[in-house]
């Protein structure tokens, strides 16, 4: 098994004297774990994905009582596409009649390990992503408050001393309390270990064009330096009497780099050179394009890309199929872009893909333009998802579990990320996650 070989090969280096270094908090720290990869990109294939139309490849057969089966996510999974009643593609002569050409020569399933049947006990969007990022089922917390348990971003930054710009959370909007998930309220962790959140479809969308695009870039020495000196004086006076503000700890250099990045994105947008997928006109495709730019610029140790266009399934099943298909294309593009355009991350990045939860077995009564009924997320079928990981040390072409044999839980994902990046022991020592098992432990 590759992982065992990896562990064997790294045993010597793990036993060697590790070089201690000082964390931003000032605590002396010595790394205890070996990394399987230096970068992890986690695509939260969110919004609620039914197993039936994704991994089980039943297309319309299991949802609309129409006998057409096939794989509409052929960059991710093995399997032939449907041949009858094609509505999942882009619009040609009629809506959805033109499938997007396959992008990857080898599917992600062939390149990595697929957990076909995984449990996800929370079936709401915010609660689902919260679980994905904290490794906890947070039944008792509100929907408009930050997570009460530490996020994976905080574990990484606190235990490995990773800089703020090396941790990104890229969302496809600001709804569903998504911006609240960049750090938790936990007293041992918190904002100083948070991620840089970015909702690029807003930042670089119409609102951003109007209010961000024409921002000045001040001269760092002549203008910013005296400005910051005055600000720091004012802040010091305030700290002596007032309340501190949450701060994710970007240094002045990092802030300048983010501002420069924002400026450049507007230029690239104007020139049409954002790294969008070849067919990337939906919201998820746009988000993936900007995510590629973030990865290229900052080479993050860990980044989460949140996609949720499939949530339209409540009232537009045809749109849901289109979104599944387009997002599969976008995820394929993301992997392809990392391997071919970011040399620092190529061959040194693990991609993890997981829906936040599934969708119902029984449809609701809302009918779309193709007379297809929609699906909400509230019954037992909503607790069924798949997980997939691809990267160094991950077995290729391995499938774990099946429809009748559920293996894995959504709370196994955070320990998996921690294991890949070498801080699983520290995370487990904190004792704040629901499971100590990573997906590797279940193989």
């Amino acid at each position, binding site marked *: 098994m590759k992982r065992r070989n990896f562990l064997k090969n790294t045993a010597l280096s793990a036993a060697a004297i590790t070089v201690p270094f000082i964390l931003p908090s000032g605590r002396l720290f010595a790394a205890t774990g070996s990394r399987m990869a230096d970068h992890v990109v986690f695509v939260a294939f969110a919004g609620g994905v039914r197993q039936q139309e994704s991994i089980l490849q039943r297309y319309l057969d299991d949802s609309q009582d129409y006998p057409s089966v096939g794989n509409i996510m052929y960059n991710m999974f093995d399997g032939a596409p449907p041949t009858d009643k094609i509505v999942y593609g882009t619009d040609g002569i009629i809506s959805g009649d033109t499938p997007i050409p396959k992008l990857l020569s080898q599917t992600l399933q062939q390149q990595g390990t697929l957990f076909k049947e995984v449990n996800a006990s929370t079936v709401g969007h915010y609660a689902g992503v919260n679980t994905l990022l904290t490794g906890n089922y947070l039944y008792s917390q509100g929907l408009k408050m930050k997570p009460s348990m530490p996020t994976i971003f905080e574990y990484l930054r606190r235990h490995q001393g990773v800089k*703020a710009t090396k941790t990104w*959370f890229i969302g496809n909007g*600001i709804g569903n309390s998504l*911006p609240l998930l*960049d750090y938790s309220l936990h007293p041992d962790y918190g904002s100083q270990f*948070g*991620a*840089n*959140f*970015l*909702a*690029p479809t*807003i*930042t670089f969308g*119409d*609102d*951003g064009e*109007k*209010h*961000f*695009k*024409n*921002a*000045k*870039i*001040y001269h760092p020495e*002549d*203008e910013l330096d*005296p*400005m*910051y*000196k*005055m*600000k720091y*004086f*004012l*802040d010091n*006076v*305030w*700290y002596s*009497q*007032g*309340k*501190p*503000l949450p*701060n*994710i700890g*970007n240094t002045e250099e990092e*802030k300048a780099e*983010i*501002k420069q990045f*924002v400026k450049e994105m507007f230029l690239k947008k104007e020139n049409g050179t954002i790294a969008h997928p070849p067919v990337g006109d939906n919201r998820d495709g746009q988000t993936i394009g900007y995510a590629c730019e973030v990865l290229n610029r900052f080479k993050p140790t860990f980044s989460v890309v949140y996609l949720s266009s499939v949530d339209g399934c409540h009232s537009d099943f045809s749109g849901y199929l289109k979104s599944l298909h387009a997002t599969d294309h976008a995820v394929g593009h993301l992997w392809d872009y990392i391997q071919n355009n970011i040399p620092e991350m190529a061959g040194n990045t693990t991609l993890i893909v997981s829906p936040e939860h599934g969708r119902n077995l029984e449809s609701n009564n809302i009918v779309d333009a193709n007379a297809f009924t929609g699906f909400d997320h509230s019954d037992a079928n909503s607790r069924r998802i798949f997980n997939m990981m691809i990267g160094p040390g991950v077995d290729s072409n391995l499938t774990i579990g099946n429809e009748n044999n559920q293996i894995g839980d959504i709370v196994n994902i955070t320990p998996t990320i921690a294991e890949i990046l070498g801080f699983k022991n520290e995370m487990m020592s904190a004792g704040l996650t629901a499971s100590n098992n990573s997906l590797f432990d279940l193989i």
Partner: protein
Amino acid sequence: MKKITLLFFCLSVLATSCKKDDIIYDVNQVNATSYNANKNKLKTISQYISILYANLFQKALSANELVEITNCIESIGDKEVAHEIILSNFMNKSGVTIPSDSLMRTDVNAFIEQTYKRFYVRDLTEAEREFFLNFFVSHPDVSVEMVYSAFSLSNEYQFY
């Protein structure tokens, strides 16, 4: 009967007792806003933007623009970065009402006092006055825009 007499006597004493005048010391009374002006509530993004815009442009921000700018700020996690970009975008617009640099240099003392009142709604302390007087001497190229930006981005300005 005795009780009624005693009650009547007490009420008479109370009614006729003298009232002591407030002591007035021989100094002028000054209405000063307290240090930090008892600010203990964090402004929401909308409040911050509305107040900042009114402060810089001396007029109210439209409801549509308020929503748009709030969305923009929410789309970036590091609020300091988001505020800096929004602020520098404001500074790039026409209509910003700020004094000229030459006017600032003519009476630095008055400028600092006015700036504290304009942004912090309070008087400055002598320590703060001292800092800025020295700062302007050691940084002769500091502009009004830089000073206003520093105040706009400061943590105290986030509270009310």
